Structures are given as C-alpha cells and as structure tokens.
C-alpha cells in the first residue's frame, strides 16, 4: 500500500455503504493509521445514491473528500457510471455483479466482479453483500493487517448488535476467498 489509500464506496441507501466505510476506517485505525470517513448526507440518501469517502494514510489527511479513488466499491449501476472514470489509473474497482450487469470498459484499472448480493442471500447473510466486497478488497489491496481487520469489524459492531458480528465475519471470509 502506498502512503495514502483513497477509497470510495457507492450504492443505494440501505446497502450498508456507510457501515462498510466504517469497517475499513476502524481497521485502518487499529493499525494506527490516520483515518478519515466522510459520508454523503442529505435527501439523496433516501432511496437514492449514497456514497462514502474513506482515506487511510501514513500521514495527516488533507481533504477527506475522495474525488480520485484508488479503490471504488460500486453497488449499483448509477454509482459505477458516476465514478468509474474518476478511479486513478492502476486503481481497483470492485463491482457487485448481482446488481450491475455492465462491464467496465477501462483497461487501465483492476476490476473484480463478485456476485455479492446473490452469494449473501444464498448464505443467509442478507445485507452483508458489501462486506463480501470489503473482504475481496482486503485480499486484493491489503488496506490493513489481518489482525486490524479482525479488530476493526468487532469495533464497528455495537454490543447490542453482537449477533451481526458472526455474519459479517463470514461475509469477510467469503470475500477473501473469492
């Protein structure tokens, strides 16, 4: 990983975009990195598109708004269309191919298609599709150590939702193995 990793997660409200962003952010924090997490907020979140900027860096973070992502996680077509050209050359795009049938035309980026929503539904992990993509991102980009990821996912799930921890851990594992 270079000094700074800019991550953009985008999809519909309700797909866990902000939660997945927090998972990445907390994992980076567990490695004692500098972190920022910035959600889109406002009326576009109600049923419309939602996105979240996460920056993990060795040094203090300037703008927390990710306009040129190193990694894009796209959970629906409008999000992929909106941000595909913003990804830096050599960057990584993770596509939930259950939601997006279109292929990325760019040849200067690494694209991974994961049938995340379908896999999540089949395995009883409804709502964890994006965490599968986070697992895949961990495998391909290595944004933190394994230990930090394990701790990060525990930090981000509040005690009263402890039942969700196992599901999310399983989703991460599926992503890492796909």
């Amino acid at each position: 990983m270079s000094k700074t990793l800019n991550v953009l997660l985008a999809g519909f409200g309700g797909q866990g975009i902000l939660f997945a962003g927090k998972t990445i952010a907390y994992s980076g924090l567990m490695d004692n990195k500098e972190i920022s997490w910035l959600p889109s907020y406002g009326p576009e979140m109600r049923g419309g598109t939602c996105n979240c900027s996460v920056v993990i860096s060795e040094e203090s973070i300037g703008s927390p708004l990710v306009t040129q992502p190193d990694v894009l996680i796209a959970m629906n077509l409008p999000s992929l269309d909106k941000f595909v050209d913003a990804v830096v050359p050599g960057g990584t795009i993770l596509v939930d191919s259950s939601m997006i049938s279109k292929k990325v035309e760019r040849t200067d980026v690494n694209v991974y298609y994961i049938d995340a929503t379908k896999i999540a539904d089949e395995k009883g992990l409804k709502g964890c599709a994006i965490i599968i993509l986070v697992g895949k991102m961990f495998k391909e980009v290595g944004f933190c150590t394994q230990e930090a990821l394990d701790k990060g996912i525990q930090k981000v799930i509040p005690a009263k939702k402890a039942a969700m921890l196992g599901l999310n851990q399983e989703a991460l594992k599926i992503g890492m193995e796909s």
Partner: protein
Amino acid sequence: MAEKVLMKGNEALAEAAIQCGCKHYFGYPITPQTEIAAYMSKRLPKEGGVFLQAESEVAAINMVLGATAAGVRSMTSSSSPGVSLKSEGVSYIAGSDLPALIINVQRGGPGLGGIQPSQSDYWQATKALGHGDFQMFVLAPSTIQEMVDFVPLAFEVGEKYRVPSMILSDGMLGQMMEPVEFPEKKDVVIADKPWATNGHQNKRPKNIVNSLYIQPEELENLVKERYERYEKIKAEEQRAEEFMTEDAEIVIVAFGASSRVARSAIKSAREEGIKVGMIRPITLWPFPDKTIEKVVPTAKKFLCVEMNMGQMVEDVRLVVNGRKPVEFFGRTGGVIPTPAEVLDQIRALAGKEM
C-alpha cells in the same frame, strides 16, 4: 493516553462540551448539525444536565442567555439559517456581557440555501452576528480533534473576557469521522462568576443582567469599556497555524475545511518544487494579523482559499495593505473545492512572474 476513537465531528464536539462542564444545552434541529442536539438529548439527562429542544432558534438562544446569566456553562448549536435566527439573542448576550457558546455547522446560503458544507458565514461570525457594536471570540476547527479541543478554549476565553464565543464549523467537519482523543478526565475548574444572577441570599447586593441603557453617555461608556476588552483579546488571543511558510513565496490563507484541501494541494505543489505554504487562522476573530504580517516581507503572493465568494480575503488584504497581491479562489453553494483545483491555482500563480 486515552484510546483514540472514531467519532463524527458533531458528536465529538457535543461530548467535549459535556466533559468540560456544559450541562445546559438548548437547540433546534437543522441539517447538518442535528447530531449535536441528538447526542446532547441522549447524554445530558444522564449527566444531571438539561437538554431542551426549544420551539424555535430564537427561543433556544434566549434560554442560553438565561442559563448563562445564572452562571452556568450553556450552549446552543445550529446551522447557517438557524444561526441567523439566533442573531438577536446573540446581540443581547454580547450587550449583557455574558459568555456563551454558539456552534455554527455551516451550510450553503443565503436563504435556506443548501445542506452541503460551506464557509459563507465568515462575515456573519466575524463582523456582525446581530446588531450593535460587538464582537465574538470565533474559533475555526479543521479537524475532529480541534472540534474537541476548542470547546473548553471557547468557554474559557469567553468567560475570561465575558464575551460570547462561536465555533465556526461546517457540514464536512460535522459529518466526517476521524480518530479523536479526549483529554484525561479531570475536575473541571470553572471561574467564579460574581456577576451571576443566581440568588444573593441576602449576602451580597443583587446582580442585574441587562442590555438596555437609555442614557447615551452611559451606553457609550459601557461599549467603550467592552472595546477595551476586545483590544486585550486582539493582543492576547490570536491563534494561527503556519504550515511550510519558512521559505514560501506563495502563502495560502485558509481556515477550517478549505485549509485541509489547501494542505493536500500544497504537498503536491511542493513535490513539483513550488515554494508554497499556508497560514491557517484558528481564531477568525481576533483575526491573526500578527502571523500574516510576519510573512509579508518574504511572501511574493497570497492566495485565499475559501468555501464562499471571498470573505476572509478582505481581512487578509487589510493586513497585507497593498504590499503584495492577494488573490482569491473559492467554491460556494456547498461545493467542496478539490486539491487538484487548488493546485491549478498555485501553479498559475507560480507561473506568473515567479
């Protein structure tokens, strides 16, 4: 050292207020600051404090006036249109020589404007949030850590000089999360307030909190006395951060969210060999003119970067006073400038006669 936690700026600020003894919060919801009120509503009752959602912003600021007159630390928070509604009450607080903390998590304006981040209330905060001759102590955080650290500072300075304080934040800082560390828990020391109207119990003459003075001479003397305090604040309370200014030929002046964008652009420009640095005003009033003055002899050009149409740039021009060119770059309406845009501005300035 305490553990670092990830918190939204709004929530971190609210927690900091509780930790420094502010147990009285009055407010009204508005995006993008509602998390402050929500956090207070959850926490303050457990802390033995008062959270009250008022019927309007006007009511909320007057409740702050009442609470602070009684000698307790009290605050309100809102976003731009809501802060405008509070303006009458803020003027009364200033006219009554009361400290109080007002938070503005700015959004685009004028009018209802938008809900995305903005810095277009700089003039309102530093020149005239309300009628009459008065100033507030205004702090501009640029990180979530500063959202925390500036809360006790705002109370302490406000109480020391008996002036209202404002933390001028914005939607970006309010909504974003960063690791933040709270100071070790210690007993909060709040200065004595012999002026407080908290019951004389027949042990002292009664205190009166008032902003009405019918006799012009009396009012003039009072305002002049207040301005002597403002002069002390200007002399003693200016704060600014300097970033790579030692050899800078181009000096960017930016505060809050836009200073973060500028910092990213400066790092890129330095890699291209452009000698650029930044002065980041931390106090917007008093404006850190001493720090700007210091670099005027060595800087060739200044560039103000703001999320508005050019407000602080006027204060920079007042200090520079024509000795060097002061340019401006801004985005407004809720648009956050990108580091690439600011870098283009820096390159253009460096290309011009440098």
